[in-house]
């Protein structure tokens, strides 16, 4: 009988997981929450289980007991957590094990170890990965943080030991700023992760974010699928990713890839995973953390390697041996991904909610669209703001940029503002085309005026005048109203304009 997969996630990643799972012959079960009862991912499933979490404090995707209940009632064999939610929660992996459900991810202990930055760094040192100078373990007061900062020199960064996604993270430029920043990072980390532990390390002002994709099985086979560069970020949230990185030499790629594989072997890694590094202007690299889940930006790697990462994630979880060797991995062309978020780039990327009255995606050779929305989808404040990802591949970087530019031009959405104008701006900007952009680009160079375009502005001005003029003419010609109500034309005009 076909094995049954529970997709413990929503949106585009739920659809993406089901695509690979169906090819493996799995029966796909998804969860329907009243918070988005008409979501697109529900239509892609073989079976839909309803779960009413409308009045619950936590979403069903964050509720281990609820998920295990659904697994038992629906004879689930395999659970895929996607990204976000509980994807890096060791308790879910444990609960799966106890309930005889295969968890599409690494062993629970690996998730726990890699989720704890202190332990992860110890393991990295043991495996010979370079680390930034900083606190050996967590610090417990701002005074302690201050002592370490004095030793390693400012600027330093405070980070939540249990953190991720930029929460509980503060950059401290000088000694007088450390107390305030320690306190706010501690509070934020406590609120977000129920753990207020912080550590301190040397801060690189304008780094590159480079990450290596690892693929491993439970039989000791480990390969890497090259790097992705994800330096285009805003508040530590990635917005545009590419593979390969324009900043890495082939030698550096080989060296970092090999070290990443050694690290994964050393810790006994047994799934897909990502090792994140930051790199300074002299191409010195430092281990940051390992993500033990599939990443949002995995398609850029798939585009240049032809490897289906989610299919392999499911296969190795079910005990299969990796049949790919390092020599099988060949990089072909260049891939770029732009995340399309429902955010207003003209207003500090504040979230946009509402109904998508129309959405038209670009089509074409080497364009891949991953999305969880369609016409008439409702964008709610309950979930993250990512609507879609546009991924393109070109034969080289310049070609990929050109394809992305055209893809973005052919993307249309009505009803919400998105980050598309921002993406267009970035990929055409000199810092991007030269490949010199860093994680500080948005903070240091971006202003919303850059989104404006003189032709668009002129057409918009004309459109505003067109509307005003129409109303103006209407007032002048609507004489019947004028006579019947014996209303002054000035009063009418005021009413029309107010």
């Amino acid at each position: 009988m076909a094995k049954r997969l529970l997709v413990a996630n929503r949106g585009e990643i739920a659809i993406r997981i089901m695509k690979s799972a169906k090819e493996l012959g799995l029966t796909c079960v998804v969860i329907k929450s009243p918070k988005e009862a008409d979501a697109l991912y529900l239509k892609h499933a073989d079976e839909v289980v309803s779960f009413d979490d409308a009045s619950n404090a936590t979403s069903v995707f964050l509720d281990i007991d609820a998920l295990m209940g659904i697994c038992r009632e629906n004879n689930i064999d395999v659970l895929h957590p996607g990204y976000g939610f509980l994807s890096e929660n060791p308790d879910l992996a444990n609960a799966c094990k106890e309930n005889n459900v295969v968890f599409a991810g690494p062993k629970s202990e690996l998730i726990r170890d890699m989720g704890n930055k202190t332990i992860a760094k110890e393991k990295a040192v043991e495996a010979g990965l370079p680390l930034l100078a900083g606190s050996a373990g967590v610090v417990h007061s701002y005074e302690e943080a201050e002592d370490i900062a004095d030793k390693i020199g400012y600027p330093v960064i405070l980070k939540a030991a249990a953190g991720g996604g930029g929460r509980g993270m503060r950059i401290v430029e000088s000694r007088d700023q450390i107390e305030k920043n320690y306190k706010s990072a501690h509070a934020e980390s406590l609120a977000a992760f129920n753990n207020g532990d912080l550590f301190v390390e040397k801060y690189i002002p304008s780094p590159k974010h480079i990450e290596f994709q690892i693929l491993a099985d439970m039989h000791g086979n480990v390969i890497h699928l090259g790097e992705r560069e994800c330096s285009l970020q805003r508040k530590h949230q990635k917005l545009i990713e590419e593979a390969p990185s324009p900043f890495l030499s082939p030698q550096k790629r080989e060296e970092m890839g090999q070290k990443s594989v050694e690290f994964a072997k050393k810790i006994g890694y047994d799934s897909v995973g990502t090792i994140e590094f930051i790199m300074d202007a002299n191409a010195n690299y430092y281990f940051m953390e390992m993500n033990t889940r599939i990443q949002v930006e995995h398609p850029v790697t798939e585009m240049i390697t032809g490897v289906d990462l989610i299919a392999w994630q499911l296969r190795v979880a079910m005990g299969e041996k990796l049949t790919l060797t390092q020599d099988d991995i060949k990089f072909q062309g260049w891939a770029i991904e732009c995340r399309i978020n429902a955010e207003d780039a003209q207003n500090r990327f504040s979230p946009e909610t509402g109904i998508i009255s129309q959405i038209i995606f670009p089509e074409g050779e080497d364009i891949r669209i991953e999305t969880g929305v369609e016409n008439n989808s409702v964008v709610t404040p309950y979930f993250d703001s990512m609507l879609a990802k546009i991924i393109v591949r070109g034969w080289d970087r310049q070609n990929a940029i050109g394809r992305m530019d055209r893809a973005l031009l052919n993307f249309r959405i009505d009803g919400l503002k998105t980050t598309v104008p921002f993406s267009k701006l970035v990929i055409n900007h000199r810092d991007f085309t030269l490949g010199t952009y860093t994680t500080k680009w948005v903070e240091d160079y971006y202003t919303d005026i850059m989104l404006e375009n003189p032709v668009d502005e002129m057409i918009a001005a004309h459109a505003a005048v067109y509307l005003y003029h129409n109303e103006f003419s209407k007032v002048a010609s609507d004489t019947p109203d004028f006579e019947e109500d014996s209303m002054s034309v000035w009063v009418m005009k005021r009413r029309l304009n107010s």
Partner: protein
Amino acid sequence: MAQEYVYKRDNSRLFVAMRDNGRRFKVIMNEDKIPVINEKEEDIRLVRTEESHMCFEYRERRFHCVVTKRNKNSYTMLINGVEYTFSVESVSSYLRKKILAKDAGEEQDLSIKAPMPGKITAVYVDPGDEVNVGDPLFALEAMKMQNEILSPIKGKVLELTIKEGDVVVKNDELVKIGVVD
């Protein structure tokens, strides 16, 4: 030269669309002809229009233009995902506004409104505090992110209507800052 003739003779077809940043577009709407914008004929043609959505053609490209906000003579137009706000005036109202602007006061007190819905996680100022441009006023947590709200002007905190832990919706008035001379 024919256009100039229209411009001089028929002020009822001349409008000024002005943005907050001061950029101005003088637009002459010609019946059955292409518009003149800032003294130049521009081949903008309306392809179709429905409710608040207009589609124009210009230099063989289509431009979709949606009215996202409208208040009196102010129009916010969304085009290629970017919003532009114009206040449109006829020639006479434009001239009147210019005269009025001369008499109006210079700077005014400023209310800081919530830019997005969220929760106030920290308040850094008290009433009476003097603040500079860029000083953090409070932290707003929205979509799992901490956002520091900075003062856009130099001034004095007159009124504080929030405290730590408050949940606010978009456009709630949070802090009032008075201009100091």
